[in-house]
Protein backbone atom coordinates (compact mmCIF):
# COMPACT_ATOMS: atom_id res chain seq x y z
CA UNK A 1 0.00 0.00 0.00
CA UNK A 2 1.41 3.38 -0.96
CA UNK A 3 1.97 6.28 1.36
CA UNK A 4 0.62 8.52 -1.36
CA UNK A 5 -2.75 10.07 -0.59
CA UNK A 6 -4.05 8.63 -3.81
CA UNK A 7 -7.65 8.64 -2.83
CA UNK A 8 -8.05 12.33 -3.46
CA UNK A 9 -5.76 12.65 -6.43
CA UNK A 10 -7.38 13.91 -9.61
CA UNK A 11 -6.03 10.86 -11.37
CA UNK A 12 -6.33 7.22 -10.51
CA UNK A 13 -4.02 4.53 -11.76
CA UNK A 14 -5.65 2.84 -14.69
CA UNK A 15 -4.75 -0.73 -15.38
CA UNK A 16 -7.32 -3.36 -14.64
CA UNK A 17 -4.75 -6.12 -14.22
CA UNK A 18 -3.47 -6.93 -10.73
CA UNK A 19 0.08 -5.60 -10.91
CA UNK A 20 1.47 -7.71 -8.12
CA UNK A 21 3.71 -10.53 -9.14
CA UNK A 22 2.89 -13.88 -7.62
CA UNK A 23 -0.29 -15.40 -6.47
CA UNK A 24 -2.75 -13.78 -4.16
CA UNK A 25 -3.10 -16.11 -1.22
CA UNK A 26 -6.58 -16.08 0.26
CA UNK A 27 -6.98 -15.90 3.98
CA UNK A 28 -6.72 -19.39 5.30
CA UNK A 29 -9.37 -18.87 7.94
CA UNK A 30 -11.36 -16.18 9.62
CA UNK A 31 -8.91 -16.29 12.51
CA UNK A 32 -5.69 -16.01 10.49
CA UNK A 33 -3.80 -12.95 11.64
CA UNK A 34 -1.45 -12.56 8.72
CA UNK A 35 -1.70 -12.70 4.98
CA UNK A 36 1.31 -13.06 2.77
CA UNK A 37 0.99 -12.04 -0.82
CA UNK A 38 3.87 -14.17 -1.84
CA UNK A 39 6.20 -14.55 -4.75
CA UNK A 40 8.10 -17.60 -3.47
CA UNK A 41 7.20 -21.11 -2.33
CA UNK A 42 9.06 -20.41 0.93
CA UNK A 43 6.70 -17.61 1.84
CA UNK A 44 3.66 -19.65 0.92
CA UNK A 45 4.94 -22.56 2.98
CA UNK A 46 5.68 -20.36 5.98
CA UNK A 47 2.53 -18.26 6.02
CA UNK A 48 0.73 -20.50 8.48
CA UNK A 49 3.81 -20.70 10.71
CA UNK A 50 4.12 -16.91 10.74
CA UNK A 51 0.47 -16.74 11.59
CA UNK A 52 0.96 -19.19 14.45
CA UNK A 53 3.92 -17.46 16.08
CA UNK A 54 2.36 -14.00 15.88
CA UNK A 55 -0.74 -15.43 17.54
CA UNK A 56 0.89 -17.16 20.50
CA UNK A 57 -0.74 -16.36 23.84
CA UNK A 58 1.16 -14.45 26.51
CA UNK A 59 3.10 -16.84 28.70
CA UNK A 60 3.21 -19.45 25.94
CA UNK A 61 6.62 -20.67 27.11
CA UNK A 62 5.55 -21.11 30.71
CA UNK A 63 7.18 -17.85 31.80
CA UNK A 64 6.70 -14.22 30.73
CA UNK A 65 6.78 -14.72 26.99
CA UNK A 66 4.88 -12.69 24.39
CA UNK A 67 3.96 -13.54 20.79
CA UNK A 68 6.35 -12.67 17.98
CA UNK A 69 5.85 -9.02 17.14
CA UNK A 70 4.25 -8.24 13.83
CA UNK A 71 7.10 -5.91 12.95
CA UNK A 72 9.67 -8.64 13.56
CA UNK A 73 7.61 -11.12 11.58
CA UNK A 74 7.21 -8.68 8.69
CA UNK A 75 10.95 -8.10 8.57
CA UNK A 76 11.63 -11.82 8.75
CA UNK A 77 9.17 -12.44 5.94
CA UNK A 78 10.95 -9.84 3.83
CA UNK A 79 14.30 -11.47 4.55
CA UNK A 80 12.99 -14.93 3.79
CA UNK A 81 11.65 -13.71 0.48
CA UNK A 82 14.96 -12.04 -0.31
CA UNK A 83 16.98 -15.18 0.42
CA UNK A 84 14.68 -17.60 -1.39
CA UNK A 85 16.51 -20.31 -3.25
CA UNK A 86 14.62 -23.07 -5.00
CA UNK A 87 17.34 -25.61 -4.15
CA UNK A 88 16.99 -25.08 -0.40
CA UNK A 89 13.97 -26.11 1.69
CA UNK A 90 12.24 -23.39 3.69
CA UNK A 91 13.77 -22.62 7.08
CA UNK A 92 12.36 -23.39 10.49
CA UNK A 93 10.96 -20.42 12.39
CA UNK A 94 11.42 -20.42 16.15
CA UNK A 95 9.84 -17.75 18.36
CA UNK A 96 11.75 -16.07 21.16
CA UNK A 97 10.18 -15.29 24.51
CA UNK A 98 10.44 -11.56 23.85
CA UNK A 99 8.68 -11.18 20.51
CA UNK A 100 11.76 -11.94 18.43
CA UNK A 101 12.27 -14.90 16.17
CA UNK A 102 14.99 -17.08 14.71
CA UNK A 103 15.22 -18.50 11.21
CA UNK A 104 17.33 -21.63 10.94
CA UNK A 105 18.53 -24.44 8.70
CA UNK A 106 20.41 -27.60 9.67
CA UNK A 107 21.50 -29.46 6.56
CA UNK A 108 24.48 -30.46 4.46
CA UNK A 109 26.59 -30.28 7.61
CA UNK A 110 25.97 -26.60 8.18
CA UNK A 111 23.90 -25.08 10.98
CA UNK A 112 22.74 -21.60 9.96
CA UNK A 113 20.81 -19.56 12.49
CA UNK A 114 19.51 -16.04 11.90
CA UNK A 115 18.30 -14.37 15.09
CA UNK A 116 16.05 -11.40 14.31
CA UNK A 117 15.79 -9.13 17.34
CA UNK A 118 14.10 -6.26 15.49
CA UNK A 119 14.18 -4.88 11.96
CA UNK A 120 17.78 -4.30 10.96
CA UNK A 121 19.14 -5.87 14.16
CA UNK A 122 20.08 -9.38 13.17
CA UNK A 123 22.68 -11.80 14.50
CA UNK A 124 23.56 -14.66 12.19
CA UNK A 125 25.73 -17.65 12.95
CA UNK A 126 27.04 -20.56 11.00
CA UNK A 127 28.55 -23.75 12.37
CA UNK A 128 30.44 -26.03 10.02
CA UNK A 129 29.86 -29.52 11.38
CA UNK A 130 32.80 -30.88 9.39
CA UNK A 131 35.51 -28.39 10.31
CA UNK A 132 34.04 -27.22 13.60
CA UNK A 133 34.35 -23.59 12.47
CA UNK A 134 31.86 -21.24 14.09
CA UNK A 135 31.13 -17.75 12.77
CA UNK A 136 28.79 -15.16 14.22
CA UNK A 137 28.09 -11.78 12.62
CA UNK A 138 25.83 -8.81 13.19
CA UNK A 139 23.78 -7.70 10.20
CA UNK A 140 21.59 -4.72 9.41
CA UNK A 141 20.15 -4.36 5.92
CA UNK A 142 22.67 -6.17 3.75
CA UNK A 143 22.30 -9.94 3.73
CA UNK A 144 24.82 -10.81 1.05
CA UNK A 145 26.77 -12.96 3.52
CA UNK A 146 23.65 -14.97 4.36
CA UNK A 147 23.01 -15.58 0.70
CA UNK A 148 26.57 -16.88 0.36
CA UNK A 149 26.09 -19.15 3.35
CA UNK A 150 22.96 -20.59 1.81
CA UNK A 151 24.77 -21.07 -1.47
CA UNK A 152 27.47 -23.04 0.37
CA UNK A 153 24.80 -25.05 2.13
CA UNK A 154 22.76 -26.06 -0.87
CA UNK A 155 25.60 -27.77 -2.68
CA UNK A 156 26.46 -31.36 -1.92
CA UNK A 157 29.78 -31.14 -0.11
CA UNK A 158 32.66 -32.92 -1.80
CA UNK A 159 34.43 -33.39 1.53
CA UNK A 160 31.40 -35.23 2.85
CA UNK A 161 31.23 -37.51 -0.16
CA UNK A 162 34.76 -38.70 0.48
CA UNK A 163 34.10 -39.05 4.21
CA UNK A 164 30.93 -41.00 3.46
CA UNK A 165 28.80 -38.66 5.57
CA UNK A 166 25.06 -38.29 4.96
CA UNK A 167 24.23 -35.51 2.54
CA UNK A 168 20.67 -34.32 2.08
Amino acid sequence: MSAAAQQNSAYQRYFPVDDRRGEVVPFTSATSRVRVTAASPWSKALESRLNAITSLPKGWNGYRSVPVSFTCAAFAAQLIERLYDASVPPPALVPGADGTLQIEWHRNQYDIEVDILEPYKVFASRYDCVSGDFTEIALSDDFTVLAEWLKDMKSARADLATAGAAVV
Partner: protein
Amino acid sequence: MSRPENLPDFSSPPLDELVMGVQFVPLAGYTVVAAQDIWNLFRDEFPGLEQQPPIPPQFEAFGGWSPQPSFSFQFNVQLPSPRLWFVSEDGNHLIQFQHDRLMLNWRRINGEGIYPRFENIVERFASHLVKLGDQIQSAFGQKLEISQSEVSYINVIRVESYAEVGRWIEGAGALYGDSEIIASNSAKVLHRGGDTMARMHNELHSAMSGDMSHKAIRMALTVRGKPQTSEITSAIEFIRFGREAIVNEFAALTTKYAHEAWGRK
Protein backbone atom coordinates in the same frame (compact mmCIF):
# COMPACT_ATOMS: atom_id res chain seq x y z
CA MET B 1 19.21 24.53 3.92
CA SER B 2 19.12 25.69 0.30
CA ARG B 3 18.55 23.69 -2.83
CA PRO B 4 21.68 21.86 -3.99
CA GLU B 5 23.38 23.53 -6.92
CA ASN B 6 23.31 21.69 -10.25
CA LEU B 7 20.21 19.76 -9.26
CA PRO B 8 17.81 19.82 -12.25
CA ASP B 9 15.12 22.39 -11.68
CA PHE B 10 11.79 22.87 -13.41
CA SER B 11 9.51 25.90 -13.17
CA SER B 12 6.35 23.81 -13.64
CA PRO B 13 7.06 20.12 -13.15
CA PRO B 14 4.19 17.66 -13.50
CA LEU B 15 4.41 16.90 -9.80
CA ASP B 16 1.05 15.78 -8.42
CA GLU B 17 2.13 14.62 -4.98
CA LEU B 18 5.20 14.57 -2.76
CA VAL B 19 5.40 12.28 0.26
CA MET B 20 8.13 12.01 2.83
CA GLY B 21 7.99 9.73 5.80
CA VAL B 22 9.59 7.63 8.45
CA GLN B 23 8.84 4.28 9.93
CA PHE B 24 9.82 3.85 13.58
CA VAL B 25 9.86 1.27 16.34
CA PRO B 26 6.17 0.77 17.16
CA LEU B 27 4.93 2.63 20.21
CA ALA B 28 4.57 0.12 23.02
CA GLY B 29 1.08 0.22 24.48
CA TYR B 30 -0.24 2.63 21.85
CA THR B 31 -3.98 2.60 21.37
CA VAL B 32 -6.17 4.86 19.31
CA VAL B 33 -7.05 6.73 22.50
CA ALA B 34 -3.58 8.27 22.42
CA ALA B 35 -4.23 9.55 18.89
CA GLN B 36 -6.05 12.60 20.23
CA ASP B 37 -2.87 13.86 21.88
CA ILE B 38 -0.91 13.22 18.69
CA TRP B 39 -3.45 15.14 16.61
CA ASN B 40 -3.36 18.00 19.09
CA LEU B 41 0.32 18.51 18.23
CA PHE B 42 -0.63 19.44 14.68
CA ARG B 43 -4.27 20.43 14.89
CA ASP B 44 -3.79 24.17 14.47
CA GLU B 45 -2.32 23.58 11.05
CA PHE B 46 -4.22 20.37 10.26
CA PRO B 47 -7.77 20.67 11.54
CA GLY B 48 -9.27 17.94 9.36
CA LEU B 49 -9.29 14.28 10.40
CA GLU B 50 -9.79 11.15 8.30
CA GLN B 51 -9.16 7.49 8.90
CA GLN B 52 -7.51 5.01 6.53
CA PRO B 53 -6.37 1.38 6.68
CA PRO B 54 -2.88 1.08 8.17
CA ILE B 55 0.14 0.64 5.93
CA PRO B 56 1.96 -2.62 6.75
CA PRO B 57 5.64 -2.43 7.70
CA GLN B 58 8.04 -2.14 4.77
CA PHE B 59 11.74 -2.85 4.92
CA GLU B 60 14.33 -2.49 2.21
CA ALA B 61 16.85 -5.30 2.44
CA PHE B 62 19.83 -5.97 0.21
CA GLY B 63 21.91 -8.93 -0.78
CA GLY B 64 20.39 -12.29 -1.56
CA TRP B 65 19.41 -13.79 -4.85
CA SER B 66 15.77 -12.83 -5.22
CA PRO B 67 15.08 -9.42 -6.64
CA GLN B 68 13.03 -7.25 -4.33
CA PRO B 69 9.64 -8.83 -4.76
CA SER B 70 6.24 -7.25 -5.00
CA PHE B 71 5.45 -8.91 -1.77
CA SER B 72 3.28 -7.84 1.07
CA PHE B 73 2.81 -9.07 4.57
CA GLN B 74 -0.36 -7.83 6.16
CA PHE B 75 -2.49 -8.29 9.14
CA ASN B 76 -5.72 -10.07 8.28
CA VAL B 77 -7.66 -8.42 11.03
CA GLN B 78 -7.90 -4.66 11.34
CA LEU B 79 -5.24 -3.42 13.70
CA PRO B 80 -6.62 -1.38 16.60
CA SER B 81 -4.38 1.35 15.24
CA PRO B 82 -5.73 2.78 11.99
CA ARG B 83 -3.80 5.24 9.87
CA LEU B 84 -4.98 8.74 10.64
CA TRP B 85 -4.90 11.67 8.23
CA PHE B 86 -4.57 15.14 9.72
CA VAL B 87 -5.58 17.43 6.85
CA SER B 88 -4.87 21.11 6.27
CA GLU B 89 -7.66 23.59 5.66
CA ASP B 90 -6.98 23.70 1.93
CA GLY B 91 -6.56 19.93 1.71
CA ASN B 92 -3.20 20.22 -0.03
CA HIS B 93 -1.15 19.16 2.98
CA LEU B 94 -1.69 16.22 5.22
CA ILE B 95 0.08 14.34 7.96
CA GLN B 96 -0.35 10.59 8.08
CA PHE B 97 0.14 8.95 11.45
CA GLN B 98 -0.07 5.39 12.71
CA HIS B 99 1.61 3.55 15.57
CA ASP B 100 4.81 3.07 13.59
CA ARG B 101 4.83 5.80 10.93
CA LEU B 102 4.71 9.51 10.37
CA MET B 103 4.44 10.97 6.88
CA LEU B 104 3.89 14.38 5.39
CA ASN B 105 2.19 14.75 2.02
CA TRP B 106 1.76 17.67 -0.28
CA ARG B 107 -0.68 17.02 -3.11
CA ARG B 108 -2.60 18.82 -5.77
CA ILE B 109 -6.36 18.70 -5.32
CA ASN B 110 -8.17 18.30 -8.65
CA GLY B 111 -4.98 19.39 -10.36
CA GLU B 112 -4.79 22.59 -8.31
CA GLY B 113 -2.23 23.76 -5.81
CA ILE B 114 1.08 25.62 -5.87
CA TYR B 115 4.03 23.36 -5.12
CA PRO B 116 5.69 24.83 -2.02
CA ARG B 117 9.08 23.26 -2.88
CA PHE B 118 10.96 20.51 -1.22
CA GLU B 119 13.06 22.67 1.10
CA ASN B 120 9.99 24.12 2.77
CA ILE B 121 8.30 20.77 3.10
CA VAL B 122 11.28 18.93 4.56
CA GLU B 123 11.85 21.66 7.15
CA ARG B 124 8.25 21.36 8.26
CA PHE B 125 8.53 17.58 8.38
CA ALA B 126 11.63 17.80 10.55
CA SER B 127 9.80 20.01 13.02
CA HIS B 128 6.82 17.61 13.04
CA LEU B 129 9.18 14.77 13.89
CA VAL B 130 10.68 16.72 16.77
CA LYS B 131 7.19 17.42 18.14
CA LEU B 132 6.23 13.78 17.80
CA GLY B 133 9.46 12.65 19.43
CA ASP B 134 8.88 14.88 22.44
CA GLN B 135 5.29 13.72 22.75
CA ILE B 136 6.01 10.01 22.66
CA GLN B 137 8.86 10.42 25.11
CA SER B 138 6.45 12.17 27.45
CA ALA B 139 3.45 9.89 26.90
CA PHE B 140 5.16 6.53 26.41
CA GLY B 141 8.57 6.97 27.98
CA GLN B 142 9.96 5.79 24.68
CA LYS B 143 12.45 7.40 22.34
CA LEU B 144 11.48 7.89 18.71
CA GLU B 145 13.69 5.32 16.97
CA ILE B 146 13.50 5.61 13.22
CA SER B 147 14.15 2.44 11.25
CA GLN B 148 13.22 3.52 7.72
CA SER B 149 12.92 6.73 5.74
CA GLU B 150 11.36 7.37 2.38
CA VAL B 151 10.51 10.06 -0.09
CA SER B 152 8.24 9.78 -3.13
CA TYR B 153 7.61 12.08 -6.06
CA ILE B 154 4.43 11.25 -7.94
CA ASN B 155 4.21 12.91 -11.32
CA VAL B 156 1.15 12.97 -13.55
CA ILE B 157 1.58 13.88 -17.22
CA ARG B 158 -1.64 14.60 -18.98
CA VAL B 159 -1.87 13.04 -22.47
CA GLU B 160 -4.48 12.61 -25.19
CA SER B 161 -3.36 9.06 -25.85
CA TYR B 162 -1.01 6.64 -24.08
CA ALA B 163 0.84 6.39 -27.36
CA GLU B 164 2.34 9.77 -26.43
CA VAL B 165 4.36 8.18 -23.64
CA GLY B 166 7.47 8.23 -25.82
CA ARG B 167 7.20 11.97 -26.16
CA TRP B 168 7.67 12.33 -22.40
CA ILE B 169 9.64 9.30 -21.23
CA GLU B 170 12.90 8.35 -22.94
CA GLY B 171 12.64 5.06 -24.80
CA ALA B 172 9.07 4.41 -23.71
CA GLY B 173 7.67 4.89 -27.19
CA ALA B 174 9.61 1.93 -28.54
CA LEU B 175 8.61 -0.17 -25.55
CA TYR B 176 4.91 0.63 -25.36
CA GLY B 177 4.03 1.69 -28.90
CA ASP B 178 0.33 2.32 -28.89
CA SER B 179 -0.40 0.18 -25.84
CA GLU B 180 -3.80 0.51 -24.31
CA ILE B 181 -2.37 0.03 -20.87
CA ILE B 182 1.03 0.85 -19.40
CA ALA B 183 2.22 -0.90 -16.27
CA SER B 184 5.85 -1.01 -15.31
CA ASN B 185 7.68 -1.45 -12.01
CA SER B 186 11.43 -1.35 -11.68
CA ALA B 187 13.90 -0.85 -8.88
CA LYS B 188 17.56 -0.19 -8.46
CA VAL B 189 19.96 -0.02 -5.56
CA LEU B 190 21.52 3.33 -4.71
CA HIS B 191 25.02 3.61 -3.35
CA ARG B 192 27.05 6.41 -1.82
CA GLY B 193 30.75 6.19 -1.26
CA GLY B 194 30.69 2.46 -1.85
CA ASP B 195 27.98 1.86 0.75
CA THR B 196 24.54 0.56 -0.10
CA MET B 197 22.18 3.39 0.80
CA ALA B 198 18.69 2.75 -0.45
CA ARG B 199 16.49 1.35 -3.14
CA MET B 200 14.78 3.51 -5.76
CA HIS B 201 11.45 2.26 -7.07
CA ASN B 202 10.09 3.49 -10.37
CA GLU B 203 6.44 2.90 -11.16
CA LEU B 204 5.13 3.95 -14.56
CA HIS B 205 1.43 3.49 -15.23
CA SER B 206 -1.38 4.67 -17.40
CA ALA B 207 -3.87 6.78 -15.44
CA MET B 208 -7.33 8.24 -15.87
CA SER B 209 -8.97 11.25 -14.30
CA GLY B 210 -11.66 10.53 -11.78
CA ASP B 211 -14.43 11.25 -14.26
CA MET B 212 -12.66 9.07 -16.86
CA SER B 213 -12.50 12.00 -19.26
CA HIS B 214 -8.74 12.57 -19.36
CA LYS B 215 -5.80 10.28 -19.72
CA ALA B 216 -2.42 10.69 -18.08
CA ILE B 217 0.88 8.95 -17.53
CA ARG B 218 1.71 8.49 -13.86
CA MET B 219 5.35 8.17 -12.87
CA ALA B 220 6.13 7.58 -9.19
CA LEU B 221 9.72 7.58 -7.99
CA THR B 222 10.35 6.44 -4.42
CA VAL B 223 13.59 6.15 -2.49
CA ARG B 224 13.38 4.08 0.66
CA GLY B 225 15.91 2.65 3.08
CA LYS B 226 17.45 2.61 6.50
CA PRO B 227 19.03 5.90 7.63
CA GLN B 228 22.51 5.75 9.12
CA THR B 229 21.19 6.18 12.65
CA SER B 230 17.78 6.14 14.29
CA GLU B 231 17.92 9.89 14.96
CA ILE B 232 15.68 12.47 13.30
CA THR B 233 18.64 14.30 11.74
CA SER B 234 19.74 11.10 10.05
CA ALA B 235 16.23 10.47 8.68
CA ILE B 236 16.09 13.98 7.25
CA GLU B 237 19.53 13.59 5.73
CA PHE B 238 18.34 10.37 4.08
CA ILE B 239 15.27 12.12 2.69
CA ARG B 240 17.47 14.82 1.19
CA PHE B 241 19.66 12.16 -0.37
CA GLY B 242 16.59 10.44 -1.77
CA ARG B 243 15.24 13.66 -3.18
CA GLU B 244 18.46 14.38 -5.08
CA ALA B 245 18.49 10.87 -6.49
CA ILE B 246 14.86 11.17 -7.59
CA VAL B 247 15.22 14.54 -9.26
CA ASN B 248 18.34 13.43 -11.12
CA GLU B 249 16.62 10.21 -12.20
CA PHE B 250 13.50 12.08 -13.27
CA ALA B 251 15.56 14.42 -15.44
CA ALA B 252 17.46 11.49 -16.96
CA LEU B 253 14.32 9.49 -17.74
CA THR B 254 12.32 12.32 -19.32
CA THR B 255 12.81 13.78 -22.79
CA LYS B 256 14.06 17.18 -23.97
CA TYR B 257 10.55 17.85 -25.21
CA ALA B 258 9.28 17.23 -21.69
CA HIS B 259 11.94 19.45 -20.14
CA GLU B 260 10.96 22.31 -22.40
CA ALA B 261 7.31 21.85 -21.61
CA TRP B 262 8.05 21.87 -17.85
CA GLY B 263 10.38 24.85 -18.00
CA ARG B 264 13.69 23.27 -17.16
CA LYS B 265 16.03 26.00 -15.94
